[in-house]
């Protein structure tokens, strides 16, 4: 009686794509991080959908751990952003082009 899994999967795929596009297109470091969060959420949605469809709790357990790791990642990542952009006047990642050549 539930909504077919396909719809949720397509939704998650679309969310993932939007997040990816935003990651590639935006220049501000903070917005890029938010796009990463979007992608992680898309993955979480997919796992939960599968968990429901296959009647397996493991999917939800994985989502649990993904959330933990996402939190840790945001912590460290924002720390890096702060330490890198503290002295500069913009948060554009295009300025970090030391690897050129």
């Amino acid at each position: 009686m539930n909504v077919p899994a396909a719809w949720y999967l397509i939704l998650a795929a679309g969310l993932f794509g939007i997040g990816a596009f935003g990651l590639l297109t935006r220049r501000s470091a903070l917005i890029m991080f938010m796009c990463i969060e979007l992608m992680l959420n898309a993955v979480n949605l997919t796992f939960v959908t599968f968990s429901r469809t296959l009647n397996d709790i493991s999917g939800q357990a994985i989502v649990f751990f993904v959330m933990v790791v996402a939190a840790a990642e945001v912590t460290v990542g924002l720390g890096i952003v702060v330490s890198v952009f503290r002295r500069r006047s913009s948060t554009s990642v295009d300025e970090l082009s030391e690897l050129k050549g």
Partner: protein
Amino acid sequence: MIAVIHTVPTLVFVTSALLILIGAIGVISVKNPVHAALCLIMTLIGVAVAFVAQSADFLAAVQIIVYAGAIVVLFLFVIMFLGVDRREHIHFEPLVGQRAFAGVGVAITIGGLIALMARSHWVSGASSVTTKLSAGNGNVRQLGTAVFTTYLFAFEVTAALLIIAVVGAVLLARRERPVASEEAA
């Protein structure tokens, strides 16, 4: 009008879909980072709704508390710290062809992914026997049992990971002290 809406689950799905998509598009297209954070919250709430509809109650709660409540707040702290008035010039793209290629690449990837999923009947695989979902109230108990027995090692490792993350964050964000005050001490 009511005849168009078939069932409650469909309605719930449509709601969550709308929240998610509008929020996502908002994140990637607004200029002000604070507005972007707010759009992100909208998406996260949409995802929480989807979780509830899929009987992942505990996760929905954790999503709101941890994601929307902690992570986005952290984002806002950093935005404030680095200055709100920093706006990005969205219209101007310095790298040639980036948007076009990005659009094409993402479209192909997602399109292909959906095609593959469609081809393989969306969800294949046998239903699990040992760790099956119990309906309704037993979700927290069941999830707890799974995390603390089957996935105990992962749980301990993530605990360590969190500590490392905290230590790392503290070190990274530390302001440098002048050398003279250390010698005087």
